[in-house]
């Protein structure tokens, strides 16, 4: 695979020389042939090196050396060819001027194409956010506002720069305008930028205020993270989660609940299984970790927060769409980080209650351990 890729690059380079030289008479053909030969030698060396295996390190090194020779030869040919073409140009200042003008037009065009390509990619590419499944539509709206404001500025700057290259390209008989500063223009630009920034910041702060203000009626759900899995704890009949401490953790008490706290005995504990949530009910997700930093994120819910050992963090959201979603760890937590994931099922209240009654409580787990 590596060989194929690097070989591909090498062939590109050889082709580059070829294209540069086609249609420029016998000298061009000569360079094209030489460049291809050098490229082929380099590629051959690379294949030798890749195919040599661990038993023959000398063959491996020889192959690599041949590869390096091929590459360097290609560079050298490219340079020689450029030198000779440059030599031709000295024939006529007029022709040099015309070539320069063509270059300038190409550069301006390239700048426009980069801008157009960016905008085109934004609107035409198939990669976009996943359909939302929570109440945080305002977050998406803020992103859209930001895309529009910044996009307009980006396009304006890129196009203006292309215009400058096109219009103010070097001429011997002209001088640049001498204008150390233009306070009026600068203040105008400052003002307009400040307005644009305020246009993004205001909705941003407004929505952030909602994000950090948990509604009174939100039910609490605890997500416990450890390397490299998630577990869940739901309040039992009393509707309150019992207190916990990492110091209490033992094999039969994996959540570290305080046995003396009666509120914890009816807590529902879910390990190695998916989390279910009722639709359209606000949830306050309490986040705990017992070893390193983690993060519990479902892309469709648009809300995330790190889990930090030694403290309890939180966020809230309201699921608005039924279905099964992937929750992933979004904070590097060691070698198994990429495999740390779990599923979250959003369903209507009837199904949720049916599921909930089947889950074990802390009291039952303690009883089982005692047996």
């Amino acid at each position, binding site marked *: *695979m590596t060989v194929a*890729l690097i070989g591909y*690059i090498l062939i590109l380079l050889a082709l*580059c020389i070829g294209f540069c030289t086609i249609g420029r008479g016998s000298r061009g053909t000569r360079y094209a042939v030489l460049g291809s030969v050098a490229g082929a030698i380099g590629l051959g060396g690379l294949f030798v090196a890749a195919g040599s295996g661990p038993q023959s390190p000398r063959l491996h090194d020889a192959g690599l050396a041949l590869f390096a020779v091929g590459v360097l030869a290609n560079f050298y040919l*490219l*340079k020689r060819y450029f030198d000779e073409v*440059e030599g031709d140009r000295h024939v006529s200042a007029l022709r040099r001027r015309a070539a320069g003008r063509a270059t300038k037009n190409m550069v301006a065009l*390239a700048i426009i194409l980069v801008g157009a390509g960016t905008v085109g*990619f*934004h609107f035409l*590419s198939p*990669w976009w956010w996943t359909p939302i499944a929570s109440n945080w539509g305002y*977050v998406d709206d*803020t*992103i859209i506002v*930001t895309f529009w404001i*910044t996009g307009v*500025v*980006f396009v304006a*700057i*890129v196009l203006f*720069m292309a215009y400058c290259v096109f219009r*103010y390209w*070097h001429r011997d008989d002209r001088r*640049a*305008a001498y*204008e*150390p*500063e233009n306070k009026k223009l*600068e203040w105008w*630009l400052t003002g307009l*930028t400040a307005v644009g*920034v305020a246009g993004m910041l205001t909705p*941003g*702060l407004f*929505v*952030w205020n909602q994000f*950090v203000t948990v509604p009174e009626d939100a039910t609490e759900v605890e997500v416990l993270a450890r*390397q490299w899995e998630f577990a869940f704890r739901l309040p039992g009949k009393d509707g309150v989660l019992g207190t916990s401490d*990492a110091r209490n*953790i033992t*094999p039969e008490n994996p959540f570290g609940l305080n046995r003396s706290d009666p509120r914890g005995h009816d807590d529902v504990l879910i390990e190695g299984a998916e989390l279910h949530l009722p639709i359209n009910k606000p949830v306050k997700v309490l986040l705990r970790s*017992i*070893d*390193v*930093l983690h993060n519990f994120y479902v*892309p469709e819910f648009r809300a*995330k927060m*790190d889990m*930090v*050992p030694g*403290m309890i963090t939180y966020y809230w959201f309201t699921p608005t769409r039924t279905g099964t*979603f992937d929750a*992933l760890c979004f904070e*590097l*937590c060691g070698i198994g*980080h*990429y*495999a740390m*994931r779990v599923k979250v099922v959003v369903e209507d209240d009837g199904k949720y209650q049916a599921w909930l009654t089947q889950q074990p409580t802390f009291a039952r787990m303690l009883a089982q351990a005692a047996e």
Partner: protein
Amino acid sequence: MAYFIPTAPEDVPPAELGEVELYHAHSWITRWVFCQDAKVIAIQYSLTALAIGMVALVLSWLMRLQLGFPEAFDFIDAQAYYQFITMHGMIMVIYLLTALFLGGFGNYLIPLMVGARDMVFPYVNMLSYWIYLLAVLVLVSSFFVPGGPTGAGWTLYPPQAILSGTPGGAEWGIIIMLASLALFIIGFTMGGLNYVVTVLQARTRGMTLMRMPLTVWGIFVATILALLAFPALFVAAVMMGFDKLLGTSFFMPAIVEMGAQLKYGGGSPILFQHLFWFFGHPEVYIVALPAFGIVSDLISVHARRNIFGYRMMVWAIVIIGGLSFIVWAHHMYVSGMHPYFGFFFATTTLIIAVPTALKVYNWVLTLWRGNIHLTVPMLFAIGFIITFVNGGITGLFLGNAVVDVPLSDTMFVVAHFHMVMGVAPILVIMGAIYHWFPLMTGRMYDDRLGKVHFWITFLGAYAIFLPLHYLGLLGVPRRYFEMGETSFIPPSAATLNEFVTVMALIVGFSQLVFIFNLVWSTFWGKAAERNPWKATTLEWQTPEMPPGHGNFGDRLPIVYRWAYAYGIPGAPQDYLPQNVPPDLARVDELPEEEKRHKAAAGGHA
């Protein structure tokens, strides 16, 4: 008096101090190896930084191969992958970008541009380089110790950085990383004090602060930031080292690792993040400000036009530098810190966009009504503006607390910071190397190879990082060894990853063109004419090229005007070097507007 009005020769202040005898080398070793000449130290810094940067480039290929073609390479397992990303990030940010901009360009350009014979403390300057080299070697050694280098991510967040679930966490890797960082900071502090004192104390007669080229302003302010920010990283590294080696609990709460209770308790992981980002955010500007300064000079010289709004450019650099110390927690919106911090840090972060945007406008307005030469450095400057604007505006997404919530720790972040502090500053570095190559070697680089290099690098790098934003929007997390199966990522994302990987290999490979060009031209390039770009700044006015020991021969230059006297109407050439006296220039250097203003005020101002 306005900064662009030249001083009459009789108004130039007298020298406050006599010349200090320079240190002179007596042997080959003290001339080229243990050398105290800032120019040689600059080259040593640059070559070391570029060499270790090549290692980081290869690491990026390896990680891209894994992302583009998962399961195709046996030697890249999860442990190796996390080690690759960690070392790639750390090397690029600290050992390449910081060292090259400050140690490389700072050393070379500060004394030459302000009209000094050398740095103020040459011996400390030399020590600075050797300690930097030691830091690099210590860093490299971690590839060869048991367990390999640390794989904690370049942010080194505890607790995982020093626990066994992370590569190098239970073995040597993390300790070596911390030791190397501490060495780097010690070495940098020695150099940094030099840069600041040289700018403040060793400027030649007439070189007021408001006449300094923006390159010097950028490096100067960045160095001050670094001197204030690096200590935070230093103490964080020491404290984490204590946690690891002595069992203290600065950053370590009660932890149950794989079922076992550890002896830590009471520490705060978030404290480390505050310390890290109190360094880490100014670090972004430690890299960006020199790039801002250098690119201003590249644009001005090659567009033959005075930099537009010099005074505002200087103030923008200073304001950005100041603000950069009160925005750090925008890296921590979802870290679990108190949520109300979000209001403050989102506001300060978006405010910083205003001076930054002004700098962009002024670069573009410098091109406007200019006389643009599309030389290789100019092309790189144009590439910088596009990538910087692109990367800057995605910063407005991530800085706005609530928008950061879905985007943080996704590929969007990776794309953002690579565009804004990876590609953009590196384009400036390349442009600057081409620009000052004739000065450093006395020879010209090959123009055509330079253009080939530019187009592949610029278009290729843009094609790498633009699509990654959209993968992040989709929800693709960063720092994932393998994406595996999920319900929200379509198979087309894998195809896009393959494309990005191929582009990364092409761009990386094209850097060989750059290296070939530099090496070839250093030895066999065409001899460069004096001041080939017709620049006004002092480094091009030295009696020898490349400048010799002591930089300016018998007499230090005297500065009569600002660094941007391009295109003055009526002048014999389209530029007036800073050290040409106004009576020799024989031209009225006041801009039209100023003259009208004077006339209206009734004659002499």
